[in-house]
């Protein structure tokens, strides 16, 4: 490999945030010069291709043509989440896919957009070089929205995070015994809506921002929650901690219900299908009647 590293930047359908950050990497503080790296203006002069954004119909052929012209070692770096999974633009009609569907990609730099520090470290990693990291700007400030972290103790598996997620990055997968909550941070727009909406503050965005990877399938953070089985048919249908959390909330809000808690718990452990059976409906009606009577007396 020659010593000089020349990067050709190819922006396809993205928001250009990543491009601004690459531009920013040229600032001496980020030490791109230390790595003997330059940004060049034509693919013929370059040996590294940096792609930002997903690829749309108009960019497909252009990307292929540019890739052909890159000099060996033909390193391809996909910068930003759009270049990894198309992120929030996934499902847009002109999109044909992330760049690795069209050309081979060696390294992915997740982030939306990645900090310049992350981009520079990615380039250093690609070149097998180390950067001096003692200056204070390497740490993200307090309140930075970076990589997710689950608190397994707190998570009740309710799935609120998946519902509010702006870019469909969170999947809820019900298995045989456990519910899997899977955050694909390569698909995430780091809006932190999940953190805001989580009723138990179980999901958090940490200060960690170095998420460099060479395998697009490994960009996941997962958490497992035990599912309970229906007390009648035995089907697994709801996370155990969610029921306990709901009961705790009810007793906190209306403490007169406390003596009915066993009955309520029994009713909640029946799956939606079994609840519709006649005798169960009768039982449920009876319980509701008792509860409303208590509530009425209490109100007076």
């Amino acid at each position, binding site marked *: 490999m020659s010593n000089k590293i020349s990067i050709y930047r190819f922006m396809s*359908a*993205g928001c250009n945030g990543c*491009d601004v950050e690459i*531009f920013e990497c040229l600032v001496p503080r980020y030490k791109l010069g230390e790595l003997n790296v330059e940004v060049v203006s034509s693919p013929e002069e370059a040996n590294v291709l940096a792609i930002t*954004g997903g690829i749309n119909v108009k960019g497909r052929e252009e990307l292929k043509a540019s890739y052909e012209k890159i000099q060996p070692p033909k390193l391809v770096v996909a910068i930003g989440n759009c270049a990894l999974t198309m992120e929030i633009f996934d499902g847009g009609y002109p999109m044909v896919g992330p760049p690795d569907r069209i050309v081979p990609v060696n390294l992915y730099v997740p982030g939306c957009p990645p900090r310049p520090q992350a981009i520079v470290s990615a380039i250093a990693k690609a070149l097998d070089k180390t950067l001096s990291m003692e200056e204070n700007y390497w740490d993200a*400030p307090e309140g930075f929205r970076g990589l997710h972290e689950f608190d397994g103790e707190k998570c009740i598996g309710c799935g609120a995070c998946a519902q509010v997620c702006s870019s469909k990055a969170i999947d809820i997968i019900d298995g045989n015994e456990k519910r899997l909550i899977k955050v694909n941070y390569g698909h995430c727009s*780091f809006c*932190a809506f999940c953190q*805001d909406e989580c009723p138990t503050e179980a999901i958090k965005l940490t200060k960690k921002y170095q998420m460099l990877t060479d395998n697009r399938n490994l960009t996941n953070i997962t958490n497992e929650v035990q599912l309970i089985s229906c007390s009648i048919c035995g089907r697994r249908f709801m996370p155990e901690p969610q029921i306990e959390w709901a009961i705790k909330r009810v007793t906190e809000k209306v403490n007169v219900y406390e003596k009915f808690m066993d009955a309520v718990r029994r009713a909640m452990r029946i799956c939606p299908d079994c609840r519709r059976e006649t005798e169960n409906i009768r039982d449920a009606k009876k319980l509701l009647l008792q509860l409303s009577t208590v509530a009425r007396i209490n109100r007076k």
Partner: protein
Amino acid sequence: MPRIVNIGPYRPQLLEPERFELLVENNKIIDANIELGYVHRGIEKLFTTKTYMQNLALAERICGICSGVHTLCYAQTVEKITDTPVPERAKYLRCIYMELERLHSHYLWFGVLAHTLHEHEAFLRIMVEREHVQDLLEYLTGNRINYLINTVGGVRRDITLKKAEKVREVLKNLRSLSDYIMSLLDDNGVFTEKIKGVGVLTRKKALEVGAVGPTLRGSGVKSDIRRDDPYAAYGELDFEVITEDDGDVYAKSLVRARETFESISIIDQAIENLPEGEISVKPGEPLVKEEIGRVEAPRGELFYYIKSNGTNMPERVKVRTPSFANDYAIIEMLRGERLENARVIIESIDPCFACTDRVTVIDVKTGRRREVQL
């Protein structure tokens, strides 16, 4: 014999891909075409598949440079649809965040201008000091770009006393950066000679092609949504609408340079007069109605139209971004200019093609080229 010169689409000197087809004779540009669509992502369609809250993140990603102002315009329009009153403190905070964004956008533009004019020293100084704004935004909002600070019904993060101190400290540094930029634009400045008299857009032409923002103000038209149709707390803050009469690239630069001082002063005033109270309220239910919203983005007037059908997802969202309005101005400015000035003229409107490409009615399906006829 005229020849055709292509600029773009994928040229790293231009921050974003776009093809400019220039008809050149004797090194003089006699005609120009713009081809759009390299950043088209189908966002207006995607808007209708997400809830009002989720769309905030999508609106932000229309453009990575003026990301905050997109969420502001979107949130203000949705607030009209959901009939949500915004707390006073949130209005002031919005002004602070948006002026910080205008600062980093204008500084970035000067960085790009220096890069285009091969003024390496100026480029480095501007980009290094621009980091102050980026660091501040990261500290205040949690991200350098795409900070998602505006939400329907207010803002998401407060500025505490400790943070306000930091803002004041950074503003001091920014004043010196703005002074430096002004010195580049004075009679002996390194920029002045290269951009004076280049790409003139007369007042009449500017109005004719419907230019907005600094491009229009550089041609002597006093137009600023912050003053003409005040939103957030701009009605209560004191600032001047900067105009220059010459209409060339130099005038546009001067407008932007002087605007950075105004922005710093607006932030100063907003921090001083920050009212106490809530920073956000819970939004109401969406009503069945249509609404429009407009704000002054760093590049000019940004316009949103939203149609609601009462569900939690909008039925139609239409966006008109400033760069789209200014694209026609590029063609006007290019005509009759020398070829080597083409790039600086294109850069002079601060084009943001990520914005523009979302709006263009590109015939992706038929592959037909959209051409701007003169």
